[in-house]
């Protein structure tokens, strides 16, 4: 399942960092943090989608405290 969310991210470099970290999470097929559009796209396994999403947000916040996702 692939879904797009509005997110808050402060700089292009931070977006890149968060994206790289989130991609490494188990169950994530693909992820994208777009700084210019302030969009977070997550493509992950259907069955655990919500769990994975929460995990991504947590991981993102660890790297970049200002990272926020509007669900």
């Amino acid at each position: 399942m692939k879904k797009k969310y509005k997110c808050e991210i402060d700089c292009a470099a931070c977006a890149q960092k968060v994206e790289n970290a989130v991609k490494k999470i188990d169950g994530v097929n693909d992820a994208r943090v777009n700084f210019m559009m302030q969009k977070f796209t997550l493509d992950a396994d259907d069955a655990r989608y919500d769990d994975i999403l929460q995990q991504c947000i947590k991981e993102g916040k660890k790297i970049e405290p200002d990272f926020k996702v509007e669900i």
Partner: protein
Amino acid sequence: MTDKLKKEGKRILLTVILYFAILILDKTGVVPFVFENTWLSFFVYLIPYFICGWDVVRKALLGIKNRQPFDESFLMFVATIGAFVTGENSEAVAVMVFYQVGEWFQNFAVGRSRKSITELMEIAPEYADVERADGTVERVDPDDVQIGDILIIRPGEKIPVDAIVRSGDSMIDTAALTGESVPRSVHAGDQVISGCINGEGLLRAEAVKAYEDSTVAKILEMVEESSDKKSRTEQFITRFARVYTPIVVYAALALAVIPSIITGDPATWVYRACTFLVISCPCALVISVPLAFFGGIGAASRNGVLVKGSNYLELMAGLDTVVSDKTGTLTEGSFRVSAVEPAPGVEKSEVLRMAALAESMSTHPIAASIRQALEEEQPDALRGVSALEDTDNVSGQGLIAVSQGRKIYVGNDRLMEACGIAFQPAEDPAATVVYVAVGNAEKFSSAAASGPEGTSVSVSTQSTPGDGAAPGDGVAQTDTTNSAEDSVDGKSAISAGAGIRYLGSISIRDSVKKEARQAITDMKACGVRKVVMLTGDRKTVGEAVGKELGVDEVYSELLPQDKVARVEQMLQELRTDENAQSGRSDTQMNRSENPEKTGASAQAKKSENSGNASKKSENDAVRHALAFVGDGINDAPVLMRSDVGIAMGSMGSAAAIEAADVVIMDDDLRRIPMVIRIARRTVGISTQNIVFALAVKLLILVLGALGLAGMWAAVFADVGVACLCILNSMRLLQKRDYLA
């Protein structure tokens, strides 16, 4: 301005004031007991430092914790700590404060550009009004509209999904999607595109697509994704920053340690090393270059052109060859009868009528053009004509239709030859010529009967019912009445052998778009070396149109797969050409041999970037790109194959939007040179930024290492340059007319 930005702004303003207050107190020596005490002075300066820079410090520490330490925050953190250590308290705070001012300004600028892009997003409809079976109207989310639902669109409302008008007339404002300011009038039966704004009238329309498949959704998705596809310049900057930051950190470390050991004066060298760190921050480039491309894409979308990624915009700036399809792209794609040349003794309208009758079941544009011409000549000529009894399509030649006892031959020269009909070749090379002849339906009818048979139709079209029922009667009647004419035209009738009489020829032309020539001239003025036209049409037609338009090369009689082959061949030539010329001097950055040149498409190039492909080769492959222009309907393979695929007139064609890299929403060819102009400006501005930022930094870096430039100069080199570059990039966001 967002609330967050406002809050940040206030905080920074506060620290600036606080900082200067402290600085004045310090330098004027009003309160010596504070500033003469090293520790007390340090703590006083720490106040504005932390108010302003606590988030930088936090980010730097977080980066260290996450083992990704090398970023701007880290550089600033280390530099300011170094300055505090060496006792330069005021400068440490200055660095932090001005770094934050710069950051704030960047956020502001990015926010502005984001807003100008999202203005485009306002094409997204917020709701849809659906008329239910019982006549009630329900307001729903556009996502919930089902195909087949009847939508009520009031004046001033956005069309929620692609739909077909069932009733109502209105003018539709398509400006947000196409950049075209003249509203389009729609009536029942017309397709309307989601995202357009309804004008004066109330429309009832039937949804033909779900929201997610509608044009507006496709466009929004594309624009959002466009900033994901990075140009080579952007990739270079990202890579550059990745190597550059660690190098500078280590260089600064060396600068702090080695000379200190030799000279025994650590304070000076640590300070210089910190200066070095501050200058080195690559943010001017990291932010201003993507911002320039973002702005360029925004400028293009405001002008009715969607560019799917910065990489394509960059390629557009260096187009070498533009290959274009003919029909529907360079020409209107609507055919018109340009000349009718009847055989001696035959009426013009007669030729048209026969052809129209034979083609009456056909939806081919040629058939439509003949019908239209006939209607102009004789408004009700086709009224009362009975249906065709039989038609026989002769592939690649034309068709033979049977109606009311007559056999009508409509086709090209080959059909005439195949049927043994003598004809008068028409002379217009740019036209498609259709020859018309008529014979008796009975296969082996006599030559004598067939001649008048042709003319008998002109008499009997008003319909004598007996004509169709008893063909023999008709023949007998007309045989006598038209004997005079028969003798006039007897020559051709007899030569036909099978008793077929030649009526004349109809020349049909596809008119060239009025702005096409101008567009091609403009493209050339924008640096395009070669404009090539591909067409499936006959050689004579292709060449005549090519000449009229001033294209450089014409390849005609191509099947769709030939077009792909032709484009591939040109791509190949372009690459070898490039290698041969790689010594040529150029205005763009430095050059060197480029191993990727042979890399096929833009996508391939993008993925092929090897880590050490330095900046030298970057802009090289950017030049010499090939673009294909088509209508996106049947040329998807070619669109994909070329460096940049440009689809024209794609309003409402989701397939075209998908296949192409650059989508021109209306069918104005002048938008191609326009995008090239925007692209060149974008690339120009980002190059200016790169050159300017690197030059200033390098200069201050050297001066800093030599001790000639202090922290203040370093702060300027960092923040000042970043601001100037951003301002430069923001020039692309200005509204400006690129069409002229």
